[in-house]
C-alpha cells in the first residue's frame, strides 16, 4: 500500500517535471524564433503573433493534460482506492 503510494507520488512528480521541461523548451524555441523572425520582418509581426499564440496553446496543452492527470492521481487515486 505505502509502496504504491510512494511510487504514485514519484510518478506524479515525473509527469509534471518532465512535462514542464518539454513545454518550456518548446515555448522557448518558439518564442526565440518569433522574436528573430519579427526582427527581420517587422511587418509580419501581427500575423505571426496570432500563430504564435495558437502554437503556444498547443504546446502548453500536452503539459497541462499531464498536470491534470498527475493531480488526479495525487488526490483521487484510482490505484489506491481499490
Amino acid at each position, binding site marked *: 500500500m505505502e509502496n504504491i503510494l510512494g511510487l504514485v507520488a514519484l510518478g506524479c512528480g515525473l509527469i509534471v517535471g518532465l512535462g514542464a521541461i518539454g513545454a518550456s523548451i518548446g515555448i522557448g524555441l518558439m518564442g526565440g524564433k518569433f522574436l528573430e523572425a519579427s526582427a527581420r520582418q517587422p511587418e509580419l509581426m501581427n500575423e505571426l503573433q496570432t500563430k504564435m499564440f495558437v502554437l503556444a496553446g*498547443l504546446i502548453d496543452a500536452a503539459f*497541462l493534460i499531464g*498536470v491534470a492527470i498527475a*493531480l488526479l492521481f495525487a488526490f483521487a487515486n484510482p490505484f489506491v482506492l481499490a
Partner: protein
Amino acid sequence: MAAEAHAPTASEYIVHHLQHLQNIKQKAVIDMSVVNYDSVIVGLLVGGLGLFFFWLAARKATSGVPGRWQAAVEIMIEMVDTQAKATIHNAQSRKLIAPLALTVFVWIFLMNAMDLLPVDLLPVIWAQIWGAAGNDPHHAYLRIVPTADLSTTMGLSVSVLVLCLIYSVKIKGLGGWMHELVTAPFGTSKNPIFALILGVINLFMQIIEYVAKTVSHGMRLFGNMYAGELVFMLIAVMGGAAAMSLSGVLLPVGHIIAGTIWAIFHILIITLQAFIFMMLTLIYLGQAHESH
C-alpha cells in the same frame, strides 16, 4: 474533536468537488447512459446568456457611432471572419462555418469563464438548496465548469468531425471522397496488387488521422480546464488548511496571492483555449474542402 472528524481532508474535499451531478454513478470509462446534469444545464445557461447579449447588440445595432458593446461584438465578428477567410476559401460554406466558429468561440469562452467564479460559491449554494429539499447536503455534488467535463468537450469535437465528414462529401462528392480515402497520403500505383496494398495502408492512415484529430481536439480543451480547476481547488485547500492549524495563520494570505496569480494567468488560458478550439475547427473544416 467530534467536529474535526467531520471536516473533510484535502483529498476528500477534492474528490467531492470532482463528482458530477449525474443521474447514475459512472461505472465504466465509457458509459453512454450517464448524463451529467450540471454540465448540460450550465452549458445551456451560459450559451443562452451569450445568445441574449449578442441579440442585444444586434437589436440596437446602428450604422452611426456604435456603442461600446456593439463595437466589442464587431471586433469579435471581424476577428473570426478574418480567420475564416484565411482558412476556408469557399464563400458558400463560409456562410455556415464563420457563424459556427463565432458560436464555438463565444460559447467555449463563456463555459471556460465559469472557472473564474470562486470554486466553492455555487457548490455551497447548491448544497443549501439540496439540503432544503430534504436531501443530505453532504451528497450535493456540482461541477460548474462544463468544459472540465470530458463529455462536453468530446461532444463538441465529435460534432466538428461530423461536420468535416459532411463537408468532405459535399465538396468532393461521395466518390471523390472515397477516392481520397484510399489514395492519400501515399498515392496509388498502376500495379493492381500494389494499388490494393497502398489503398489499405492509406485508408488506415486516414482513419488514424480522423480519430487523432478528434480526440486531441477534445482532450486539449478538457485537459486545460480540468488542470485549471484542480489548481483552483488546491489553492482553496491551502486557504482552508489554516482553519485546522495554529501555525498556518499566514496560509490565507498565500491563498489570496496564489489565487490572484493563477486567476490572472487563467484569463489568458481560457481565452487562448477557446481561440485554439475555434481555429482548429476552422482548420479541420478547411482541410475537408481541400482535395489532394
